[in-house]
């Protein structure tokens, strides 16, 4: 099935206020920035951005714009704040988090990776050793005190584990190096990161690709994300950006 859209605007046109969108990228690598820019242009409000490792620090301009437009309700991430507390003090996003205007829900990175993966794989919950011995085992870690719901733990073979749940999203924005019309995707080097798991987590998965090719042009053994997971494909120019998050 041909899943190609002619523009990013068209690809995001029906995203409604209040949507939860998975945003892949590991700091500056593999962030779907063109789709984020389309979302800013569209002005969708009340968004939850479900991230993995600070993609919005890599897309700092887009983050600041989204915050200024008051489009964000909540961010889920493992690394959502600048490393430097001093820099963070001046950051509009961190200011909004500190003022409880935006919720920041924090998980260990590997737990997040698995939450997205199982969401696409029909698994509702899993046990992980990660976070035991920290507040992560006790409750959901968030700046909004009322949302700190308790977590379950359980001992298997004498070792303690935390029960964590699947995280399915309404949409997933994906950044791929190459894609075909069926939605088969190939990522490049470390820009892969959260893209494949998030492609399976989105009910509607929209992939921006730097290179759109005809079906049959991707080496079948080297497809990273099978087209079955992708509902919309749109070709975008390669965006250059600064590699820093300090």
């Amino acid at each position, binding site marked *: 099935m041909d899943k190609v859209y002619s523009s990013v605007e068209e690809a995001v046109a029906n995203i409604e206020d209040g949507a939860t969108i998975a945003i892949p990228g*590991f*700091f*500056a*690598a*593999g962030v779907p920035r063109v789709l984020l820019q389309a979302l800013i242009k569209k002005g969708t409000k009340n968004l939850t951005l479900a991230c*993995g*490792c*600070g993609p919005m620090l*890599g897309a700092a301009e887009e983050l600041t714009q989204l915050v200024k437009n008051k489009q964000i309700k909540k961010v889920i991430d*493992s*690394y*959502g*704040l600048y*490393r430097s*507390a001093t820099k*963070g*003090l001046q950051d509009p996003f961190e200011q909004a*988090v*500190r003022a409880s205007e935006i919720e*920041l829900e*924090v*998980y*260990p*990175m*590997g*737990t997040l*990776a*698995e939450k*997205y*993966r199982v969401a696409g794989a029909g698994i509702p919950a899993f046990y*992980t*050793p*990660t*976070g*035991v*011995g*920290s*507040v*992560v085992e006790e409750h959901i*870690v*968030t*700046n909004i005190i009322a949302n700190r719901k308790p977590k379950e733990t359980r001992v298997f073979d004498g070792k303690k584990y935390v029960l964590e749940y699947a995280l399915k999203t309404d949409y997933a924005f994906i950044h791929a*190096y190459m894609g075909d019309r069926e939605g088969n995707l190939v990522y*490049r*080097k*470390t*820009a*892969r*990161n*959260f893209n*494949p*798991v998030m492609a399976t987590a989105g009910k509607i998965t929209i992939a921006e690709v730097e290179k759109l090719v005809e079906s049959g042009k991707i080496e079948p053994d080297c497809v*990273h994300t099978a087209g079955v997971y992708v509902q919309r494909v749109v070709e975008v120019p390669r965006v*250059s*950006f600064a*590699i*820093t*998050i300090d």
Partner: protein
Amino acid sequence: MPQKFQGLPREMIALRASREIKDGDYVNLGIGIPTLVSNWIEGKDVTLQSEIGMTKTGPLAFDDDVDQDLINASCQPVTELPGIAYFDIFDSFGMIRGGYMDVIMMGALQVNGRGDYAGWANPAARGMDIGNIGGSMDLCAGATKLFITMMHTDPDGGPKVVNEITFPYTTKGKVNMIFTDLAVIEITPEGPVLKEVFPGLTPEDIQSVTGAKLIIAPDLKEIEL
């Protein structure tokens, strides 16, 4: 309060810690001093894993070698070594939690003598009790050997090897050794054992800037680089 003692520079802490890495080891290096350890493994048959999704990470990239699609977990441009493999984030954390890393090195805000450590949130500096967990808790959960590399005291001269941890925990009971500018400390069931000191310092000097009560190793020696 200024620092009471002058010790190793950060690069030399990294050098000392690098001595614990053996041929054949798969190693993950956290942000901060651990990252510097990568400068000291040349000639060793060691594989660096970056949790962003690669094994056989090469040295930092500069100028024309910079590729924005090739960064390490500290967001620094890096290069490829022969045998490099890229993989998905869930596979990366699968191998981390699954115990495939032989050595994990992390920075810390506080460590105590029972092998607990805090490194992901500094409520005092940040003005809130949440921060960046990143991959630190996963790395601890899967660690075979967990080493902390850090300055012995905080910027105000206060101890970072503490009696009681006051910042949010990263993990409990998992730290094996601590490498600082002033000392090498091993965590044992009996407590923290002072194994090596910066040349010229006495065990009493180290204890004076340490919160946890140290056990002095019978074979205590100077840090050898």
